[in-house]
């Protein structure tokens, strides 16, 4: 969708055109869901957060000014919806690991992540989020674009009006600062072995 198409679609949706809104939903659902997943760490929460975010978008279309792209606006809404869900689940009781009467862990089907895995992942995600949150705004911004929004170097360059070469060096500096932060916090990935090779092979974009 070009910027102009997007503007028209938003305008139509704001007038109550549900079909237009659906276009926006289909266009952005992958990014919204994937961001919500990265923030909440669970498929179910990600789904809820995505729905909430889109609903908030729908209900606030009138206030969307159009000076930023819909993706940026949705990013904000998704972030807020995800944080609300995380806060809510913190208030609730944590699901304990299922155990049998003697306290041994029961087998849980492999397909669903076990509650402690979800919990662990959430802790990791939170630590990363906090460490990124402590960085300078410039560094934070570029890291969020790359790590949370999966933007390519070229997209980041165009969003920040930078040369791609500058994106490379800024991103590197931001990552180094993040690593410093994580070092200070004590490593949270201690249980993992380095997996950088696999990661770099899997990630072949940019």
């Amino acid at each position, binding site marked *: 969708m070009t910027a102009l198409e997007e503007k028209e679609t938003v305008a139509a949706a704001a007038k*109550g055109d549900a079909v237009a809104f659906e276009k926006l939903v289909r266009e952005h659902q992958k990014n919204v869901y994937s961001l919500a997943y990265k923030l909440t760490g669970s498929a179910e929460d990600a789904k809820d957060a995505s729905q909430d975010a889109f609903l908030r978008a729908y209900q606030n279309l009138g206030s969307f000014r159009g000076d930023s792209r819909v993706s940026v606006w949705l990013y904000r809404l998704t972030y807020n919806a995800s944080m609300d869900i995380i806060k809510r689940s913190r208030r609730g009781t944590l699901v304990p690991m299922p155990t049998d009467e003697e306290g041994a862990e029961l087998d849980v089907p492999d397909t669903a992540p076990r509650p402690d895995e979800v919990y662990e992942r959430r802790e990791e995600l939170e630590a990363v989020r906090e460490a990124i949150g402590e960085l300078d705004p410039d560094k934070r911004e570029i890291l969020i674009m790359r790590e949370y929004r999966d933007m390519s170097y070229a997209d980041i360059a165009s969003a920040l009006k930078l040369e791609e070469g500058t994106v490379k060096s800024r991103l590197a500096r931001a990552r180094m600062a993040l*690593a410093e932060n994580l070092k200070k916090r004590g490593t949270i990935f201690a249980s993992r072995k380095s997996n950088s090779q696999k*990661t770099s092979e899997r*990630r072949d974009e940019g």
Partner: protein
Amino acid sequence: MNSHEYYEELLSLRLDGLLTDEQERELEEHLESCPGCRETLELLSGVRETLDIDAEPPEGLADAVMDAVRGDIRAKRAVKRRRISIGAGLFAAAAVLAVAVIPGALRQKNTKMDSRPVLYSAPEAPAVPASPAMPEVRDAQPEDALPDEPAVCDIIDGQQPVFDAPADPDVPDEQRLPLIDALDGYAAVYTFAEIPEELVKAGEPLSLDDGAVGYALPMELLEQYEAEALMVETCGDPTAALGIALERPDGQGQ
């Protein structure tokens, strides 16, 4: 000998899988002699792995969103065109939503859960499980069967309180809307007489699906009125409010 920054950049590029073979060799060589960079790489790979969620949205996500959106549209339309009354289930919800309503304004309503839009899952009240008696939005008519709504300003200019339907006998009781969920704990109803200023002030602007502006009113405020229906329709100007269909406790309604 390259600067350390150079290797940091290589390291960053490697996380994104963007190194050439030559650069890969250079970095490997450097890593062998630089424990700091090894640690950094390990940490950042951990970050990458934690965030490396390339999750496809579940099938049906967009449909679920659209169901909720359409439920929202219907709810708002229904709020506009129908007389609104408050279900018996409201009593059950009152504790959750801090709502009080004068009994005179209540009618017995059913409270089936099946047509309840996903949207209104009382997200701000997670501590209390949704009671089966929670009121829900009911809209028995399919959306496309709804007649066109007149534009709000027609009402403002016109003498016709189009939405006024003190009894609206066509709407059977079971189709009346409990309003609480319809607008997130606010009462949004119709207005046709003088609107008390305090209500206007307390109103929260609402954007309705046809672009109309309304004001949602906190239910607590309505305690003072036997509100059968109230909503402030203003075309954006609170002082131009149409009025409100409400009966005061002293019986001097409208």
